[in-house]
């Protein structure tokens, strides 16, 4: 393997990791604050991506408008299912919410396919050639995807650390009883949380759709990698989710020359396992979720 190949693999891995980072962030936020693994995360992405396609098909050719439409749809579906399902399950065992979220995933996806069918869709975006730096190829789209992912993450971190509602989210994640005892009204905070989660999913779904294709199984298939990224980084840690996702992306791409494209997924899990054996709560995990 030459240095050029290595660079290309690193780029691919980073981009794939950043794509996974957004749903992983959404997962880890819900895990940290609402305290259950939300299996519907992927399907929120799918619904939002289709909403983006819908905006484009409706006549607005601009990818920017499509993105806004997707974010609105993502936030809406996320809030609807919170108000209907997850709010009712607060205070129950996490596994109840987990199973309900599998139900939400099925329900959301089936409602989607009922109306839009099973055909694949693609975003209408002009194709541009890669920039070639002596064999190291960089796709402008990839750069946009990476930039967008990084901007979204920066915004999320600003929200969590610089705004009152973000601080309250972190407080609830840290110690829900104490948060209540401080007078933090979790209803309002959770509503914002789910809106943010929906928007993150939507962005992730959009970017995945731009990079690949939009199909009804888009998000569901991303669920396991996103879970792995969250776990690797440590549950409830946003930084961890991003680092975990990028690490898994790079590790699996770098392993391709050695184990082939099929086992690269297994390599990602092997890495996960190794990390967990050394650090049972992931890279950035703290014992804050003691149950």
């Amino acid at each position, binding site marked *: 393997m030459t240095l050029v190949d290595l660079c290309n693999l690193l780029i691919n891995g980073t981009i794939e990791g950043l794509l996974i980072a957004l749903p992983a962030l959404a997962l880890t936020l819900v*895990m940290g604050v609402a305290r259950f*693994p939300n299996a519907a995360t992927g399907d929120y992405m799918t619904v939002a991506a289709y909403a983006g396609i819908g905006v484009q098909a409706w006549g607005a050719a601009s990818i920017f408008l499509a993105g806004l439409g997707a974010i609105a749809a993502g936030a809406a579906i996320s809030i609807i299912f919170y108000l*209907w*399902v997850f709010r*009712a*399950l607060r205070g*129950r*065992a*996490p*596994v*109840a*919410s987990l*199973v*309900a979220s*599998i*139900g*939400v*995933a*099925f*329900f*959301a*996806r*089936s*409602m989607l*396919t*009922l109306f839009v*069918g*099973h055909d694949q869709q693609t975003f209408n975006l002009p194709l541009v050639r890669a920039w070639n730096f002596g064999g190291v190829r960089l796709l402008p789209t990839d750069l946009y995807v990476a930039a967008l992912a990084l901007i979204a993450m920066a915004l999320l971190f600003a929200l969590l650390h610089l705004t009152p509602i973000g601080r309250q989210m972190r407080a609830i994640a840290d110690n829900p009883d104490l948060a209540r005892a401080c007078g933090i009204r979790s209803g309002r905070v959770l509503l914002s949380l789910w809106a943010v989660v929906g928007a993150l999913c939507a962005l992730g779904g959009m970017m995945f759709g731009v990079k690949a294709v939009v199909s009804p199984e888009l998000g569901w298939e991303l669920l*396991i990698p996103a*879970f*792995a990224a*969250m*776990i690797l980084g440590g*549950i409830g840690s946003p930084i961890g989710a991003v680092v975990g996702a990028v690490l898994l992306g790079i590790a699996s791409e770098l392993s391709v020359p050695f184990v*082939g494209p*099929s*086992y690269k*997924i*297994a390599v990602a*899990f*092997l890495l*996960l*396992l190794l990390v*967990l*054996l050394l650090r*049972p*709560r*992931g890279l950035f995990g703290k014992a804050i*979720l003691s*149950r």
Partner: protein
Amino acid sequence: MIAYLIAVGIIALIYMLLTIGLNLQYGYTGLINFGVVAFFAIGAYTSALLTLGGWPLVPAFVVAIIVAAIVAYPIGLLSLRLSDDYLAVVTLGFSEVVRLAIQQERWLTHGVQGLPGIPRMFLSLGIGDYAELATLAVLVLCNLAAIGLMLHLVRSPYGRLIQAIRDDEVAVEAIGKDPRRLKVQVFMLGSGLAGLAGAFYAHFITYLSPDQFLPLVTFYVWIAMIIGGTGRTTGAVAGSLILMVFLEGSRFARDWIPSVSEVQMASVRLALVGLALILFTIYRPQGMMGSRR
């Protein structure tokens, strides 16, 4: 109709074995295993490969159970180190790795081409259609045995200890028992049951391929357990039957709402399963059979 019901019954009973195994792991011991399908697959492929290699069915079944239980050993050890959510994802990942291995190791499993022509059970007896009835009967017996074993375990001092682990691990350590060994044993026992279920599955469907062992199977087993009620043996029975009614019953719903196309019906079916899950967890959290949790 009867033969169809027998077939549905066989699949339901296979899911029941899986659910009983998971119920032992989660319902009684609190071990979150999201890799049920891995042990199911291991049992299925073990028995299929052995019989295709000329082994008789009975020893193949036994080996399937043993192999599934042995593979569960290291995962059981892992469960000692990891807390719930981490264990859930690790087992989920493990099941995907098992599927990938089945897919890639073509010298053994034929990979994505799959294993066709796995011998049916009781075919050599030459009893034709009654072979499936016999399969059903054996499955009923196996489930009864599993339930009996389970009830025996629950009522034994050992079983009370297991449930104590679920409720308070420290307390068990305090009375001088080693919960770690029990946890691993329970994990292996439940996985062995999944292996047995896999063997039945292999010899009923007669064709195995890696894409039959997606995490969706695991989710179905969880759904069956939750709907039936965790921590209850009757819950596993009721849950897997209800799951089957949902998955298969919608075929007949199709005949009564003819204005819906088959494509739409597929969506409607999935929507109903999803809706049932949502409503069950909200309005009947204890499951059909109630629960002490």
